[in-house]
């Protein structure tokens, strides 16, 4: 079990990252990530009985993705991430931590504002620990939900 300060730094980072993405503050999100950051969305298909990767970008790939988003036609309904940090483990030197969080994603229609559950999954973050300067090094979102209608351009 990690100490209170590590836990707090990790939770802050995970929750801030969700808020930045919810707010479409791509710069703010990337500022929370280290240079070696990598974002992966994975899912298991019981239909073909295989693990699948649905998105896999390094830091540069994320830059490009965010830069290109305004040029594409996308669904404009906002999404809201609800993360709950379940476990935090750190190496003995207290330099790196792994946080496992439950993730729920809701989508809210622009017209009328109805919200619906969009996806659920589990998020595993690797974090370089440095107090308030802690950074995300790796995020792997394993989605349980695989039916996401007409999809989305922004990763969650």
């Amino acid at each position, binding site marked *: 079990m990690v100490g209170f300060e590590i836990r707090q730094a990790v939770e802050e980072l995970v929750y801030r990252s969700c808020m930045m993405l919810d707010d479409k503050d791509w710069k703010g999100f990337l500022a929370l990530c280290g240079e070696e950051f990598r974002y992966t969305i994975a899912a298991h298909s*019981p239909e*073909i009985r295989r693990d699948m990767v*649905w*998105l896999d970008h390094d830091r540069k790939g994320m830059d490009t993705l965010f830069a*290109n988003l305004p040029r594409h036609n996308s669904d404009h309904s906002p999404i809201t991430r609800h993360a709950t940090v379940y476990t935090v483990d750190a190496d003995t030197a207290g330099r790196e931590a792994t946080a496992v969080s439950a993730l729920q994603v809701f989508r809210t229609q622009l017209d009328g504002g109805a919200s619906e559950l969009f996806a659920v999954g589990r998020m595993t973050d690797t974090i370089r620990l440095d107090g308030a300067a802690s950074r995300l090094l790796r995020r792997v979102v394993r989605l349980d939900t695989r039916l996401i209608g007409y*999809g989305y*351009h922004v*990763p969650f």
Partner: protein
Amino acid sequence: MSKNAQQWQQTPALPQTHYVDSRIYTDQLLFEEEKEKLFKPSWIIACHESELEAAFDYRLFTHPTGVPLIIVRGDDMKVRAFYNICPHRGNTILYDPAGNAKRMTCIFHQWSFDSRGNCIDISRADQGYQKRFCKEDAGMREVNCETAYGGFVWVNLVDDCQPLKEFVGGALDILAPFISEPLEVFHFHKAHVRTNFKLWHDTNSEFYHDFLHYFNRITGMMQPGYFDRKYTGFPNGHASVGSMEIKYDKYEGSKSRAVGWPGLATGGWYMVDIFPGMTYNLRTSVLRIDTVVPLGPNEVIIEFRGLGLKRDTAEERRERVFDHNMIWGPFGRNLHEDLLGVHGQGRAMRPGTDSRWIIQGREENSTIHDEVGMRHFYAEWSRRMGRPAFDPYGEGKPAPVRAAA
């Protein structure tokens, strides 16, 4: 000039083959007829052989007519298809979408079936039936099943159906050199969209909507050769589109394409639409297959598969997965746009919205922005339905056709 109610009703000043009545996308009765006349007699792709590698591997598939099917590889390694309906009291036999079942046992009263569809056990048979009814009377319903054209498992519900070869005709010849070696599915997902299944097939049958895709505008449309690609129509409503080079490097973030596809020029692209709702799409390093499973006139499930070569190294596969995700993944650039497109059509075309005519009138010598692919589909639709798509209820007084300038 905008139109008043009466003008809005008037047919477009185009030949009748060049537009359809939008009620063919919303009418419940026509939809029931489509299941009977289009989907039932057609060969439908249920899954891929790589999803059933070992003996007794099975895969469930809901046929577009609604019939639940089990596709299973037998003890003799032959792939067969059966109704997933117990001949006893109509229960579901297998529940999981895929698995391995040496014997398929219905959970309800434990009747068991082998991989060839024979009933091999009726619990307490003699006590209850006293030989009036026996295992031999309780076989599963088998449907026609063939593995072909890239290792896909095709099914047909009609006993004396047209042979698969005859149904496909020459439509997949263009892809034959690329799908002769064993392939493997690495991606599967479904999309549930409130739209008509034909609208998805239409999107797969016209490239004029490349204007929807920033990616395609940049990597394709602005490149030399783009407008040279041609549609070819085939009997039974199928159509293909020939190759072009895609300049991936024009889209920032697309690294240079190394893995490719054997025999396919770098940046090559082939598409074949199989009537009434399947598409082969081979682009650069990935084969994508779409299968529509309509749930109603305004509701469809589309099954998406991504395939590579069975012999791929881990590195090659990673690259194919990356290429696939970039464009066609659930978070990919184009798939979301295409789905958003047909979602928007479904939203505008509901009973009562007073949508009226769908114009498919572009003529460009069958090249890429010609709408001949859709016209070819609706010619077959009209033939099979015994109703013209431009006037499905026989009401029409078409407007005079305007000649080309």
